């Protein structure tokens, strides 16, 4: 069972992503964070507890309080300390090439997914994430 963090302030989109993940035929445990600050606080507090860390993060860019870019800046600093290997995807409704380019400057970002999410792609991502991402 994979653990997935959805960092997105749009409740409808979070609801739809849940539907997609479940109809992609995977069983996953999904946690929601409605802004970057909440997610970064959680990761900070649980950096040493791989059992609480996710396998995959789907990160929205436009959010209140701490947006996706601000989250990434802090995540880059935090990531080496996390006791689990996490795959992070940006999930944005933005189709601006400028943002896609900017995302490439972050090595921690595996891919830039443009909303709407496709079921096949989500299934692929969940199946591709390593089962034992635990770090020593």
């Amino acid at each position, binding site marked *: 069972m994979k653990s997935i963090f959805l960092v997105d302030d749009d409740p*409808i*989109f979070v609801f739809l992503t849940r539907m997609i993940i479940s109809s992609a035929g995977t069983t996953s445990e999904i946690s929601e964070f409605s802004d970057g600050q909440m997610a970064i606080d959680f990761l900070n507090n649980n950096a040493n507890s791989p059992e609480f860390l996710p396998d995959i993060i789907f990160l929205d860019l436009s959010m209140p309080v701490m947006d996706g870019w601000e989250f990434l800046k802090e995540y880059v600093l935090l990531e080496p300390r996390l006791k689990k290997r996490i795959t992070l995807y940006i999930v944005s409704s933005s189709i601006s090439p400028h943002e896609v380019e900017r995302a490439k400057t972050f090595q921690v970002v595996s891919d830039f997914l443009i*909303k709407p999410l496709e079921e096949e792609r989500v299934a692929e991502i969940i199946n591709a994430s390593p089962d034992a991402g635990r770090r020593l």
Partner: protein
Amino acid sequence: MSSQRKLNKDNKRHPGIDDLPLTIVLDGEGVILQWSSKARAMFGWNNREVIGLPFHKTILPEKHHIDFLKLLASYERSSTEHLLHRAIEISACGKDHAEFDISMGISPVIISGERFCICYISDITERKMVASKMTLVKQLSEQNTQLIDFCNIVSHNLRAPLVNMSMLVDFIERSGDPGEQKMLISKLRPVLENLHATFNELVESIQIKQNLEIEVEDIQIQECMRRTLDGLQAEIVKLRAHIKADFSEAPVLRYPPKYLYSILHNLVSNSLKYHSPKRQPVITVKTVKVDGRIVLSVSDNGLGIDLNKHRHNFFKIGKVFHRHPHAKGFGLFMTKTQIEAMGGRIWVESVPDEGTSFFVEFKN
């Protein structure tokens, strides 16, 4: 170093005699007495053609004639007063009737009891052109920024609800369960409303940018403030907010009434929305005059905000800095658009957990 070379070097450092402005000497009635070779080069006439003619009728376009005559008359009354304390920028025309921009200063002199005027003139066409190009470049770069902002808004704020709608419709079509379909359909309404709201805000902001001829009136700020407070009455009572208003230093503003109301409403409702739960909200609204311009300030003792983090996108559309159910991030964007459309500016000062002050400077 030889003295000659030293002189040359000095010549390079200081303006040479050729750089001095062109000089024309007039008598007390404004008739041309002396016409230099520089004047010939600039205006095209030689000495014989202009000496003895009235100065203004020779080189000034007709629209400036009356002003020039008034100037001369004032010289006659006060005799030794400077005609023009500083150079003015004015248009002139030469023999070929082409108008160009000059800078002109006039000094009166009295020699053996007789009045003369000395005009110093320089051609500022090039400088004006450079200046207007600079303005154009600045304008273009501002418009470019606005365009990029606009593209981002369309690309994100409009696209997000569209994506949600299309995903919902996909699920509705695929679902075979009427109960699930009904549940999915119920989720369409808020998305549609969101799309509607974003769309309306966008249209309104474009209208503000295009509406350069909006009507302005003399507004009693106190009166506009009263309307604002009426509109926010329920919130004010609920929060037991204390509102202090003082417009005695600048009670009247010439502005589009709709904009002023919208600016006051947005800033005061922001202060109410982001009050601190730890204390009774106190909001101070006042106007002061700074260098002849009216500056409106709205200060609160609310949550405040970390400007080091958020200064860059403070007034952007869709930016929200606190968790609040009704925060959409449109208010400040609209406020800024309205203020800038009228040539003013807005800025913010804030200390987290102490409060926020917004300042709006209006163009005269």
